[in-house]
């Protein structure tokens, strides 16, 4: 019998699912499908991520549209027997609504996906990124074909301008205008760059896209190259992303083989090729001028603008640089048209935005939503609300140099302008949700500590300013702060903002300023009362035994690494504050909630 596949089993091979056991599960699934004689009927497809990263390994079965979470090798026989052979749903593997524990077996009924709109990540988790034929089958490279046969370069730029697409790397500059600058810049040799140097801690939008749909980025770049008259492009990808690098390399090789990259693309006279440059992991290299210096082989230091890269970029030639997400938007803008695209979103921010939603929400993962969705919808609907019934405290948008937005602003529509007004940034799409257990002073300190290490050191206000702000914050978290420190922070922050060359310094004070703006009372409590209300800052807290609850079981005494806890069996125990190093082990191990923090 020839193979007539009835069903496709999509297996996520992203690093999160891989770590959770996807390869072992896939191996078992392959063996079981063969053993049951289903090999000609059920096809296994390795895909990129569909974003539901907290639920990995994730398996989606089409055409039924069943989504199974946390599928391990031991679950395979039941999955095959019940679902693939008998068409029944294995309820224990389905997604459960966090509050009601109701099973939701179908992908399109899960609230996590309900408010999402997958435009850029349309193919992530749907196709095998290592197989160009699947990309072509879902309509890939049709937009490229369209521009090569029926659009003049100027028309393409007009279409991109009309779409309202803005740069997805963070600054939000209108993409069409940027392209026009590069096209109109004098010179025969022009370059394109795709920025895949994602450095925000906890963010993985760019990585997932490069892993899950590399051809969309290549197609977008090729269309851009045709529009701007470039013949050479560089893909700057951080070396910490081995799977992204592998999938991009495979994609480039296959695209060349099919005549979709290289000389005479699709039989036309247009030539364009792409080369990968691996970034060594410096956060500042995500900044465009630092990135260009790094591509040229220099240290990744930013330089003043103007001249902008569109006038003088790589080796002094006009260069257009866009984030990988921006590039992946281009095929959609061309094939569906600017008028379709600019209906999505708000007045000033069109299209969708990808966020890596992490922190204390039930559903963490990668989400793509239309611009203008509120933070409340993101946290409580898409994110499924706060984990463990805790209270929401703040959400940080835009990576380490974004601001922390409090509960009263949760109804803020997410777009470039509103986030800026609230003292934060869109950034590249990081989104960290914090609950009542987060100390906002400590959060600000944490991000400045990161930025201190990542400042390239070229501009004194950034290099020294961040260091000074950090030392003040550290002092406050240790109970040594003074009220005057707050004024110093408020004087220093604008200087760092104004007098730094690049985006790193210009946004570095955001965590401090936004927490001072919305959570000033927490700073005051640290300084005046020497207390940390969230119970985070070690110097300001004390662990103690709640006498009424202690059963004298002795678990804390045995677990304490400092032998700071004493007490007879079945008697109330005591913690010696002089010996206690506040590691919190006793708090974690007590089964009777008899250890308190004050």
């Amino acid at each position, binding site marked *: *019998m*020839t193979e*007539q*596949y*009835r*069903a*496709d089993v*999509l297996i996520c091979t992203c690093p999160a699912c891989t770590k959770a056991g996807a390869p072992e599960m896939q191996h078992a699934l392959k063996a079981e499908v063969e053993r049951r004689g289903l090999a000609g*009927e059920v*096809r296994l497809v390795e895909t990129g991520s569909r974003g539901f990263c907290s639920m990995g390994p994730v398996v989606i079965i*089409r*055409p*039924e549209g069943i989504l199974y979470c946390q599928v391990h090798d031991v679950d395979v026989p039941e999955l095959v027997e019940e679902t693939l*052979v*008998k*068409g*029944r749903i294995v309820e224990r593997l389905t997604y459960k609504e966090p509050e009601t524990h109701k099973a939701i077996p179908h992908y399109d009924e899960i609230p996590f996906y309900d408010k999402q709109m997958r435009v850029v990540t349309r193919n992530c988790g*749907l*196709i095998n990124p290592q197989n160009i*034929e*699947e990309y*072509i*089958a*879902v*309509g890939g*490279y*049709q937009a490229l*074909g*369209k521009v*090569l*046969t029926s659009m003049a370069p100027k028309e393409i730029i007009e279409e991109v301008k009309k779409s309202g697409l803005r740069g997805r790397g963070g600054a939000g500059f209108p993409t069409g205008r940027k392209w026009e600058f590069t096209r109109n810049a004098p010179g025969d040799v022009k370059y394109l760059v795709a920025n895949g140097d994602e450095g925000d801690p906890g963010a993985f939008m760019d990585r997932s896209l490069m892993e899950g749909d590399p051809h969309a980025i290549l197609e977008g770049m090729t269309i851009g190259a045709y529009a701007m008259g470039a013949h050479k492009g560089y893909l700057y990808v951080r070396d910490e992303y081995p799977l992204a690098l592998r999938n991009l390399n495979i994609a480039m090789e296959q695209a060349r*083989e*099919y*005549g*979709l990259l290289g000389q005479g693309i*699709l*039989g036309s006279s247009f030539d364009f090729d792409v080369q990968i440059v691996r970034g060594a992991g410096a956060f500042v290299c995500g900044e465009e001028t630092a990135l260009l210096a790094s591509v040229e082989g220099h240290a990744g230091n930013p330089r003043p603008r103007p001249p902008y890269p569109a006038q003088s970029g790589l080796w002094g030639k006009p260069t257009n640089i866009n984030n990988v997400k921006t590039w992946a938007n281009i095929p959609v803008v061309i094939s569906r048209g600017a008028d379709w695209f600019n209906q999505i979103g708000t007045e000033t921010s069109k299209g969708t935005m990808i966020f890596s939603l992490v922190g204390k929400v039930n559903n963490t993962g990668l989400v793509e939503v239309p611009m203008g969705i509120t933070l409340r919808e993101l946290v409580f609907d898409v994110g499924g609300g706060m984990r463990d019934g805790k209270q929401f405290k703040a959400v940080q948008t835009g990576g380490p140099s974004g601001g922390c937005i409090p509960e009263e602003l949760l109804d803020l529509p997410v777009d470039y302008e509103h986030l800026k007004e609230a003292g934060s940034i869109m950034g590249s799409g990081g989104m960290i949700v914090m609950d009542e257990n987060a100390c906002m002073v400590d959060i600000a300190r944490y991000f400045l500590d990161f930025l201190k290490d990542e400042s390239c050191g070229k501009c004194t206000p950034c290099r020294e300013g961040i260091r000074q702000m950090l030392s003040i914050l550290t002092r406050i978290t240790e109970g040594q702060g003074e009220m005057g420190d707050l004024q110093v922070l408020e004087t220093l922050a604008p200087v760092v903002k104004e007098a730094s060359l690049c985006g790193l310094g210009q946004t570095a004070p955001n965590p401090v300023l936004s927490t001072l703006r919305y959570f000033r009372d927490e700073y005051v409590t640290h300084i005046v009362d020497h207390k940390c209300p969230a119970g985070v800052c070690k110097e300001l807290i004390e662990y103690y035994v709640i006498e009424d609850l202690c059963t004298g079981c002795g678990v804390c005494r045995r677990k304490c690494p400092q032998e700071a806890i004493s007490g007879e069996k079945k008697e109330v125990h005591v913690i010696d504050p002089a010996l206690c190093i506040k590691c919190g082990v006793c708090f974690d191990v007590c089964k009777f909630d008899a250890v308190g923090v004050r």
Partner: protein
Amino acid sequence: MPKLKSIEELQKLRGQLQKDIKARTEMNTTVTVGMGTCGISAGAREVMHAILAELETRGIDAHVTTVGCIGMCSKEPLVDIQQGDEPRITYGNVTPAMVPRMIEEHLIQGNVVEEWVVGRVTGQEG
């Protein structure tokens, strides 16, 4: 793979490749085969293979799904055909030999094979 030389070649290739991802494409027609133990013992798997082969030969775009026992075990193998908002038609005691006529009349000519119908579900209940 020889290089694609024109957009026409790209479109032609896409047309050929589209059937490989049928299961992942939205479709108007779904054929569902009862695959409970009752269905399987009555020959549902053979019926499903006959359906898959017939759809392939005639180049019909349809999803084929399976479902557990719905309680009408004496009429197995049961095959449901759902097209858009049309009522869902259930055929009973289907054998591989019946498949070509079922597909020809129902999916190509648009006429339900009334003599084999054992159930019909309209609207939301389906």
